């Protein structure tokens, strides 16, 4: 019997132990978050350059909470409040626009800058390419009218309904505002009830109040 000489490994190989597995996984050079972050940045840049970054997103800290900003190649497509659940919003974007969704802040730089300026009181209107694809038909018509309500002003749902040519459709105006895919940027917060009540808001009533107060200052 050979004892300490080379065994025929192919047939007499002991099973790989848990300890050995741990060695394999743990003693190889660790992969740091920083290394992965570099690779992920590079992936986002290349995806954008090759036209396969269908949805780019980032988050932005603001006085109304951390906003999720998402843009297609056409423009800003979604602004989402924390209360909407950012993961769910991204999942919905994957289903409704494209699953090619990456955390890629660069495309959102102009939007983030303008929103920052807005909350700092240095900007009264947004000048950004917008992608309206998440709103169709009447809702889109209502949303495109919103910038016409100037900074610091408000309008009632009925007024907006009249302005878009459907005076009796004030409830549909309310729905269009409550489901605005681009809150803050498309100022649905400026649309309130005729009796002065704030009405529904995607970011919650406190956020709507804060925006109106900001613009009144």
């Amino acid at each position: 019997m050979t004892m300490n000489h080379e065994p025929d490994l192919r047939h007499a190989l002991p099973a790989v132990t848990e300890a050995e597995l741990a060695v394999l996984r743990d003693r190889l050079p660790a992969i740091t978050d920083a290394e992965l972050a570099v690779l992920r940045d590079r992936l986002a840049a290349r995806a954008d350059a090759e036209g396969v970054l269908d949805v780019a997103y980032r988050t932005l800290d603001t006085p109304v909470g951390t906003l999720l900003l998402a843009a297609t190649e056409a423009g800003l497509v979604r602004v989402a409040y924390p209360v909407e659940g950012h993961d769910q919003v991204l999942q919905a974007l994957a289903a409704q626009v494209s699953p090619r969704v990456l955390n890629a802040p660069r495309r959102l730089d102009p939007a983030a800058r303008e929103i920052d300026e807005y909350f700092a009181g240095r900007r009264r209107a947004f000048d950004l390419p917008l992608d309206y694809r998440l709103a169709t038909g009447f809702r889109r018509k209502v949303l495109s009218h919103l910038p016409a309500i100037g900074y610091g002003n408000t309008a009632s749902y009925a007024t907006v309904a009249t302005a878009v040519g459907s005076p009796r459709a004030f409830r549909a105006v309310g729905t269009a505002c409550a489901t605005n895919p681009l809150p803050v940027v498309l100022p649905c917060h400026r649309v309130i009830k005729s009796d002065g009540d704030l009405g529904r808001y995607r970011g919650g009533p406190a956020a709507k109040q804060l925006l109106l107060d900001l613009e009144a200052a």
Partner: protein
Amino acid sequence: MRTSRSAGPARLPQVTPKPPFEVVVAGHGATVLRVCRAVLGPADADDAWSETFLAALKAYPRLPADANVEAWLVTIAHRKAIDITRAAARRAVPVADVPEPLITQRAGGRDIELADALASLPRRQREAVAYHYLAGLPYQDVAAITGGSTDAARRAAADGIARLRKTYPGTALPDGENP
């Protein structure tokens, strides 16, 4: 547009929705990089990782929703690693002196030794060890990726581990511990 908060019983989607690609990168990025490093070494691993995830992003909309994403990614990584090795071979110019493997002096010196031991395995063994032990794929999947039979994949991994036990004694059980 669906409302984001539905208090009542949620409508069950007909098909499992495909997660945003970012979720795929977050969930498998580290494993794929570990596999690329094991198969190609650290110098080419970043390129392989980038090529893998770019190709995966392009093909992602066509991936069946119930596909095994990790096996799919390792399959792509395997092909990209072959491409990179071939490209390197085309670029290579004969040199008189083969450079010594770079051993960096640092606290984790032993880590580098294991990486070197892995790098010294024949390619098939390296692939089998990486795909089975690092990516956790069953031998059937490993065989589908590398070609050949499931048994051959199992043998390649076993031979690789056996060699590692010799070239990197640190892989063996710590002293005083009985199997």
